[in-house]
């Protein structure tokens, strides 16, 4: 399940620079510049919706939500020069709140790291790479609950691929991507995978 | 009981195949004469089988009286017959202890009534095995059971004065003291061989020196008083060395090794499975090799099973709470073939010596009408065991005849199988199946 990956090493990653055929790697649906533009747009939307950056906390869900949250924070800080990008970002590991632990090999627990101000009465924006069933976000809401009481919680994702199993929706979406259940959405980010791209692989096409 | 049997094509002591004719409890003809005189004898096809004199176990626990839930004289001797034995010495640690003429005669009668094998009761050395006061050794010797072997087995006669007196006293009726060599103070709470494995698994150690110290003391005592000593279940390389030294000095000492000490090592304790808990404990690989060598060169005189049946509840538990001991009557011959014959250390004539002739002589049952351990020759009692040395079988604990299941060989493949056993001409086992014995004549 590409949404909410908790194990950085358990997903097969293609070697960057390998001129592998597109069939194996899947069709590219977002290129590096497109990813950058999508994040820029989301940064503006966040500031617009919340009338500025006061009290804003971006919590990235490891593994790939965390670098996305950092990039988003940097873009927000560009628009609002008074903000310190690093102080906006935290990470929120949801492994111990998942409802599907018994269906998988044991997951490695990631770090939870909240900015110094905490989350109480803040505007928390959860950041993840792919929104799929919604179960990761449900776990994240529980995890936040144990950390404190934010004023409001919003959700930003790079890709929404549909197939929700819970009444959860994203406030900010980089790209809506209709998929079939048999397809895999692969998000690659330079910080982890050495390049930026979103691809769709598998399926019956 | 007039049935006669012609064993056709058997190889006595593994030698050239020949025919043996058994009638009226004796071997009446061997070779060409046998077939000629056979008449309407029942023919047993013994081609490919080795014939040995009926096996004699000097060390069996039959548990009756007292622990009939673990074994009875009847179930134990039936297991013995299936293992090729025609005589077993029943150890004295029953309840009540076999320390009076009354108890030994009871055990002897139970054996006679069951009919599977001759039961020779062993008398306790001390009253109640308490190690304090001599039991009535003379009364037991002169009872109907004619006890010649005395042992506190399960406990060591550790008091040197008591041991000296016992060694001296039994000279009057040519008895022998069979010592369970275990220095008690060195083995308080001991659970397994003390060494590398015990250090790892955290079970209290039973050091080799606790056995060797007693054997060394006892051979010196036997020499001093000029008596006969037998060492039970010798298990360490050091004990073999001491025995070798004692024999070189002409001391009248004999020793036994169990099948399990010829095959198994303390590494098995890593499983914490109490099936491998036994006293003396399984030792190291070096000890196994040393006792095999000692048996091969005659330092160790005999193999004795130390067949020690225990109920499931005494083994189905944590190691420390479990009873010591393992069954062995039905697997002894196979283990000896696997460890000693198949490895070239012993021939079949040697097997006859260590499992029949020598134990019969030590127990002083090698003469008279009911003698054991005699040659396979005309006129001798027809105690014969037929073995198929080519057979291989996998031990299934549930398929064994003993009333208890605590064999350490479950699932293990062994070589050689007992096919038939004759006790004074009467088959107790044919085609590897026990033959129901007639009700005792009263």
């Amino acid at each position: 399940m590409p949404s909410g990956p908790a194990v950085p090493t358990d997903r097969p990653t293609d070697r960057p620079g390998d001129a592998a055929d597109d069939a194996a790697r899947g069709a590219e649906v977002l290129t590096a510049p497109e990813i950058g533009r999508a994040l820029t747009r989301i940064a503006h939307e966040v500031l617009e919706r919340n009338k500025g950056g006061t009290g804003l906390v971006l919590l990235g869900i490891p593994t790939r939500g965390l670098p996305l949250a950092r990039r988003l924070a940097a873009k927000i800080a560009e628009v609002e020069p008074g903000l310190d990008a690093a102080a906006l970002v935290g990470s929120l590991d949801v492994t111990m709140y998942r409802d599907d632990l018994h269906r998988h090999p044991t997951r490695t627990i990631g770090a939870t790291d909240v900015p110094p101000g905490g989350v109480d009465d803040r505007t928390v924006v959860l950041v993840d790479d792919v929104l799929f069933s919604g179960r990761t976000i449900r776990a994240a809401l529980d995890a936040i609950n144990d950390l404190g009481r934010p004023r409001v919680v919003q959700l930003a994702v790079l890709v929404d691929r549909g197939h929700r199993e819970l009444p959860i929706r994203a406030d900010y979406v980089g790209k809506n991507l209709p998929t079939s259940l048999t397809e895999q959405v692969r998000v690659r980010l330079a910080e982890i995978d050495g390049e930026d791209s979103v691809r769709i692989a598998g399926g019956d096409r | 009981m007039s049935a006669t049997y012609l064993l056709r094509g058997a190889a006595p002591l593994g030698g050239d195949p020949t025919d043996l004719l058994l009638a009226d409890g004796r071997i009446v003809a061997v070779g060409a004469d046998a077939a000629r005189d056979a008449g309407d004898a029942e023919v047993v096809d013994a081609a490919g089988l080795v014939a040995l004199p009926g096996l004699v176990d000097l060390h069996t626990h039959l548990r009756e009286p007292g622990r009939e839930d673990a074994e009875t004289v009847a179930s134990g001797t039936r297991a013995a017959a299936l293992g090729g034995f025609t005589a077993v010495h029943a150890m004295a640690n029953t309840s009540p202890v076999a320390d009076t003429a009354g108890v030994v005669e009871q055990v002897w009668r139970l054996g006679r009534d069951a009919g599977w094998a001759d039961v020779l009761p062993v008398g306790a050395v001390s009253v109640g095995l308490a190690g304090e006061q001599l039991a009535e050794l003379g009364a037991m010797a002169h009872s109907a059971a004619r006890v010649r072997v005395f042992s506190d087995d399960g406990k060591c006669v550790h008091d040197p004065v008591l041991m000296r007196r016992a060694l001296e006293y039994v000279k009057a009726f040519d008895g022998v003291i069979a010592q369970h060599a275990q220095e008690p103070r060195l083995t308080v709470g001991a659970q397994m061989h003390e060494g590398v494995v015990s250090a790892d698994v955290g079970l209290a150690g039973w050091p080799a020196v606790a056995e060797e110290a007693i054997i060394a003391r006892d051979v010196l005592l036997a020499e001093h008083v000029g008596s006969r000593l037998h060492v039970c279940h010798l298990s360490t390389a050091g004990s073999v060395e001491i025995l070798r030294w004692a024999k070189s000095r002409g001391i009248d000492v004999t020793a036994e090794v169990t099948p399990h000490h010829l095959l198994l090592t303390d590494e098995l304790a890593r499983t914490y499975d109490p099936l491998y808990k036994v006293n003396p404990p399984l030792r190291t690989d070096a000890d196994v090799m040393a006792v095999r060598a000692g048996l091969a060169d005659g330092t160790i005189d005999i193999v004795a099973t130390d067949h020690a049946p225990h109920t499931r509840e005494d083994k189905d538990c944590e190691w420390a709470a479990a009873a010591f001991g393992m069954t062995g009557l039905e697997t002894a011959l196979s283990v000896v073939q696997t460890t000693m014959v198949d490895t070239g250390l012993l021939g079949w004539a040697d097997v006859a010596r260590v499992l029949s002739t020598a134990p019969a002589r030590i127990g002083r049952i090698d003469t008279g009408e009911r003698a054991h351990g005699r040659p396979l020759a005309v006129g001798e009692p027809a105690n014969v065991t037929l073995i198929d040395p080519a057979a291989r079988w996998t031990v299934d604990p549930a398929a064994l005849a003993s009333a208890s299941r605590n064999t350490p060989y479950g699932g293990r493949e062994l070589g050689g199988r007992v096919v038939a056993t004759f006790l004074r001409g009467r088959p107790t086992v044919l085609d590897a199946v026990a033959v129901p014995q007639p009700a005792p004549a009263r």
Partner: protein
Amino acid sequence: MRHLLSAADLDRATAVHLLDTASQMAATQAREIKKLPTLRGRTVVNLFFEDSTRTRISFEAAAKRLSADVINFSAKGSSVSKGESLKDTALTLQAMGADAVVVRHQASGAPHRLAHSGWVDGAVVNAGDGTHQHPTQALLDAFTLRRHLRGDADNPDGVGLDLTGLHVAIVGDVLHSRVARSNVNLLHTLGAEVTLVAPPTLVPVGAESWTSRTSYHLDQVLADQQPDAIMMLRVQRERMGGDGTGAGRTGFFPSPLEYTRAYGLDARRLALLPEHAIVMHPGPMNRGLEISADAADSPRAVIVEQVANGVAVRMAVLYLLLAKEKETTP
């Protein structure tokens, strides 16, 4: 990992993973709300055949902080000479649907029997068996060592690291100590060097095959080897000479005074240790016997912290054993 029976069963990668997981667990324990929903609906049974309030409450806290249901089963006083009780107890727990059984038993190997006898399906965690093993104690010791001796400002817990290059002295009754055995296994696996220091009577025959070194001289070890940590083992009163009641009625050393003189950690010996060295003890301590109050209460003593780390380590163990698909027994 299906059971945790012995520290010897852990390879380096598994051990580091366990410690890293414990580190994340420890982080959650600094929060106001310490309880996590991770093991909701799972049942953990604490099966204690031997008194050990400390270990039991540590496991209980660990299980409860992960939202598991905890059943405490104290079997002390029930017959141990008749081992059926272990089997019957196990069958009872099985019937109650235990997902994990944490077992403390006076017989070495009892957890091993429980895990391999087919009596229970659940995961078995050894919480100390006889004089054999106490693997979670070794893990919490390793966790404490790593945090103090490998951690730095950026990585306070030393996440991802092992104990390579560290030298640990374990002092006292090695013969009867499951803590010593577990630590010899685990610390070696993690790359540390272990020296056992004890009077010869308290070193097991066969210890020469272990991965540790052995010395009979504490002062010499402190002065020459400058260990990074010293772990003092508890001396059981019944092992001492004099009162004529100990195992075999003969003490393992002549008197408590002589033991303290040769093997006790006091202020003088504390001063022989390098600046950074830490003092450990699995508890409960015999103050004045194996450790003086000066040493036990010194800033270098991490004994109280060991207790806290115990909860995090046990959370990690329960998490890794239970938060996954149930494996079917082969």
